[in-house]
């Protein structure tokens, strides 16, 4: 897994709430057997009309907004467990998603793919959305080591929470398989204990 320590980037605002994984990657694109190419289809039905023409009103098609941070409305990633949603966001180039609330399975999938979900307060999210919508060149500094979100050249600073174990994994690029395999003896001992 790719390491993540710090990212300074402009951001893309997507204020819609309850963005579900069917929007992030529609089911008809789940037929692949590898992890490649999902980025091309991220938010497909919001980016394109059914006839294939570009939906100019959707934020990803607005050239004013660029960057590898997505700032999204409350309850981002709800719905299906499809990790394809995380592969699609990563494939498109997102490294950080900021929201006031993340769905459980999506959050885990993001972390397992080197995407950092940063959960902030409702107020902070509102401020960020307003700020980047008005000033698209606003840069956000995400410092995982210190668990701090900062607007470059602005007073806004917000601490964010992350599981200590997951933080170590992200900073070092470890994944859970390595860790679980190192505990094989304990797992086998558990199995034997359960038989009696």
């Amino acid at each position, binding site marked *: 897994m790719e390491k993540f320590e710090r990212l300074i980037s402009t951001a893309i605002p997507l*204020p*819609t*709430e*309850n963005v*579900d994984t*069917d*929007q992030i990657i*529609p*089911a*008809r694109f*789940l*037929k*692949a*057997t*590898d*992890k490649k190419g999902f980025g091309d289809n991220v938010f497909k*039905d919001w980016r394109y009309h*059914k006839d294939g023409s570009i939906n100019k009103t959707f934020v990803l098609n607005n050239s004013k907004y660029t960057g590898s941070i997505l700032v999204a*409305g*409350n*309850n981002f990633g*709800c*719905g*299906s*467990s*499809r*990790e*394809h949603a*995380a592969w699609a966001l990563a494939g498109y180039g997102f490294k950080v998603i900021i929201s006031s*609330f*993340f*769905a*459980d*399975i999506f959050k*885990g*999938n993001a972390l*397992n*793919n080197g995407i950092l979900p940063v959960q902030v307060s409702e107020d902070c999210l509102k401020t960020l959305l307003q700020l980047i919508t008005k000033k698209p060149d606003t840069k956000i500094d995400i410092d995982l080591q210190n668990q701090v979100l900062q607007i470059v050249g602005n007073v806004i600073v917000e601490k964010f929470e992350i*599981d*200590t*174990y997951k933080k170590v994994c992200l900073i070092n690029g470890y*994944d*859970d*398989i390595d*860790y*679980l*395999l190192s*505990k*094989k003896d*304990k*797992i086998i001992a*558990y*199995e034997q204990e*359960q038989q009696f």
Partner: protein
Amino acid sequence: MAKTLFDKVWDKHVVDTITDGPQIIYIDKHLIHEVTSPQAFNELAERSIPIFRPQQIVATADHNTPTVDQHLPVKDALSRNQLKQLTENCQKNDIELYGLGHEYNGIVHVIGPELGITQPGMTIVCGDSHTSTHGAFGTIAFGIGTSQVAQVFASQCLLMNKPKKLRVNVNGKLKKGVLPKDVILYIIAKLGTNSGTGYFCEYAGNVFEEMSMEGRMTVCNMSIEMGARGGMIAPDETTFEYIKNRKFAPKGDDFEKKVAYWKTLKTDEKATFDLEYSFDAEDIEPMITYGTNPGMGIKISEAIPSLDDASFEKSLAYMNFQKGERLLNKPINYVFIGSCTNSRIEDFRVAANYIKGKQKAPNVNAWFVPGSQQVAKQIKEEGLDVIFTDAGFKLRQPGCSACLAMNDDKIPEGEYCVSTSNRNFEGRQGQGARTILASPLVAASTAVAGKIINILEETSTLELV
């Protein structure tokens, strides 16, 4: 210390605890299907890691399969390849596969319980968020991503932080015509789509105690639609009776020993929850959704609420509904009875009971899709297929079908579909399709009337439900 049902099952599966971190949780059964497993198999192959406990894995093909002509080669090349990979991966790794056409094939959350694979006190995972279904048996069952599928392949374990505990109580007497689907749609409408995030939910109260296993599965299935990773109902005589004599259920003395243990799996009286809600059964009516998440639900006779909120308005615009509008008498051209939520024998009995002696409305295209080969077989044995055929309906072959429309079962753009599935997200049933979630009874009545009707007013037919 007093423990909840969830605590009892969770604590029994803790292999180890990382300081300031997650716990290693042992997984008893791992269910897999064609869509979320190939990348996990690849991951292990690339890292030369063997599958640790292949005997604890069961595979089925369901998400991406056609519901007609299953004996013929699958037309879509990508789908065909995905199914081929599943077959090859299972063969290579000595994993039991109930592929297309197999007598045990069907939707993963239908076949697990009906084959007796799902048992109380187990931990069960699957790369599918509706794995919560199995919680109906007093099982800790939850959906996982593909990275986690690979972790379970490699170690039969997962790294998890113990979720918080939520209990939803529903007591009282349900009105006639109110089905388990209405109960869960009501709960989600009251609590919202993210109310359960970070929690594992226990459903308690006489309403759940009196429900059949099929009904309990419908309820637990939709736990994820309020954000909860899983839902559970304490096992009781109804549970034991359901499991007894099923294919993979313990037999004879083993069964009796298991039942003795299963009886201990209930929340202690003094145990506490982080969050608790209670509802009156009498307040629940047949439910429908009007928006693009399962929390946007109303009683069938109610009007759509008027909220001043951009996401709410976006949702209504997608559905082409107005604030304050009532959906009764809304013409509906598509009806889907199926999915891991409502495709079990009881669901088709409800539909058949209503449909008997009536005719399908001429404007309606109805897809009735049994959850498994076993359900399809039972439908025939009980003669329900004749009722459907006489009324102008046709049964399809088992699979996830129009619930997520990965196969050809897509609702056309702009059309409404009254659906017994679990998600009404934008485009879920096909690009531009508009989903209205409902019970099998409401779906059947829509298919007959060609429009949404108030089933509570049809007293003569309600005696049958």
